[in-house]
């Protein structure tokens, strides 16, 4: 049954990667903006949760709930005042600006919190597990996957069932004509990045409670997020969840063979998908 255990652990790990990726996928899907600071923003949110936990003595889940509106505001302002200025026909300015932002966030966090490794404690919940038939699974990994699914379902509902979601899709199609409908594309983009930062906060909660983090680990999370988005196919949120799970399973299988192979196996899975299906597994029909 070891292989079944490996698959299940991989699927649960995939939930974390899907959470890393969902915000990236959302922002890219709406404004074709590749945010290279995405991983660092996750780490920033983790430090914000840590601060709320240690300063106010809050439960981490409550702290994350409190951090969400703060991160929404940060995302909204970041998009409205900075990133909107970089959008245009040239794809280079947003890449350069978010790359710079990534360095600024890392160094800001180093300045503020030093290079020490931190962890957010969830009061013993880390070590609690439940038996699913013959397999024992941790409660936190289970919560991670459940949150990832909830985030994907929530974003899909928002996208396809609400007036804001229609405005997102219309603006993504054609911002000039969207303006004729009374939509203000710059505000729509700011709202989208704000929502992406709420998802980032959820990702940060599980990043920070699952393992140690420090100010420099953002870029590696960005790579996993990218791989999940591309495996799933650009623009598909369910694809992003699936992409995260593919990387998760590849990593746990790699680790089962040899612990040194965990990270490499995830990247190899990504390369294989890229070779076989360059547009990802579930590319959006309309692009």
């Amino acid at each position, binding site marked *: 049954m070891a292989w079944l255990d490996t698959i299940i652990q991989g699927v649960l790990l995939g939930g974390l990667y899907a959470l890393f990726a969902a915000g990236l996928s959302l922002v890219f899907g709406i404004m074709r903006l590749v945010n290279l600071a995405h991983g660092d923003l996750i780490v920033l949110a983790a430090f914000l949760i840590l601060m709320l936990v240690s300063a106010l003595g809050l439960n981490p889940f409550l702290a994350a709930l409190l951090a969400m509106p703060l991160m929404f505001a940060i995302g909204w302002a970041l998009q409205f005042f900075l990133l909107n200025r970089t959008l245009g026909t040239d794809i280079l300015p947003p890449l350069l600006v978010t790359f710079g932002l990534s360095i600024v966030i890392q160094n800001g966090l180093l300045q503020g919190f030093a290079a020490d490794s931190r962890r957010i404690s969830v009061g013993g919940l880390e070590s609690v597990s439940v038996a699913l038939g013959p397999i024992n699974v941790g409660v936190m990994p289970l919560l991670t996957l459940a949150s990832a699914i909830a985030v994907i379902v929530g974003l899909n509902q928002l996208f396809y069932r609400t*007036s804001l979601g*229609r*405005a997102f*899709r*219309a603006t*993504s*199609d*054609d911002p*000039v*004509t*969207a*303006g*004729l*409908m*009374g*939509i*203000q594309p710059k505000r729509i983009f700011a709202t989208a990045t704000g929502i992406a930062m709420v998802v980032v906060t959820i990702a940060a909660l599980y990043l920070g409670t699952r393992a140690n983090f420090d100010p420099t680990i953002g870029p590696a999370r960005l790579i996993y997020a990218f791989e999940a988005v591309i495996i799933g196919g650009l623009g598909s949120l369910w694809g992003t969840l699936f992409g995260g799970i593919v990387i998760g399973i590849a990593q746990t299988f790699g680790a089962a063979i040899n612990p040194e192979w965990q990270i490499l196996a995830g990247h190899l899975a990504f390369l294989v998908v890229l070779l076989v299906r360059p547009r990802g597994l579930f590319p959006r029909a*309309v692009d």
Partner: protein
Amino acid sequence: MALLETKGLTAHYGDFQALFGVDIALDPGETIAIIGANGAGKTTLMRSIAGILTNQPKAVLFDGEEIGAMPAPDIVARGIAMVPEGRKLFPSLSVEENLLIGRYGRAVAGHWSLETVYELFPILRERRANPGTALSGGQQQMVAIGRALMSNPRVLLCDEISLGLAPVVIRDIYTAFPRIRAAGASIVVVEQDIGQALKVADRVYCMMEGRITLSGAPAALTREKIHAAYFGVA
């Protein structure tokens, strides 16, 4: 007083000047047509009114307010909706969603709603769940008109709605105009089809090279006058 007025409207694309002091006026309840050859500046004029191109505040007046410098969303909010050239439906949205997005900026009570737009163009009800861009050209044009009507505009700007459509389809679409007028909208149509423009409009403006070269009621315009104003030759 005119409902919508441009006064000495100019427009530039970089160094190229597209409009040279255009004055037009639209009275409440009126339909006017702008005719002219390709490149005469008709679409530029529409884009300037709709706020896609911005201008001196005083260059466009709507109900006495200076709106020349306002961006498009503010213009829609005041009650001017545009059916853009080439229809510009949103490919990611279904027919019904394309209609619904039309009232994003101005959810004003009035005659037009999803229900009344479907009554105006019954075929759209059948195709409501299709992607907007999966429809025929004429049906897409109906969606574009319906989408603009959904905001219950006081002024409807229609840019080249017959472009690329078969004559029978064009006739179908123009059949809807009396009902649009009856519901209270004043209309500006841009047309290359002079016959169609003379039929639908109370007054006609002819443009050439960024200027108004002729204006008047259809009955007062002879074929020779229009020909001269259109092509610049007598």
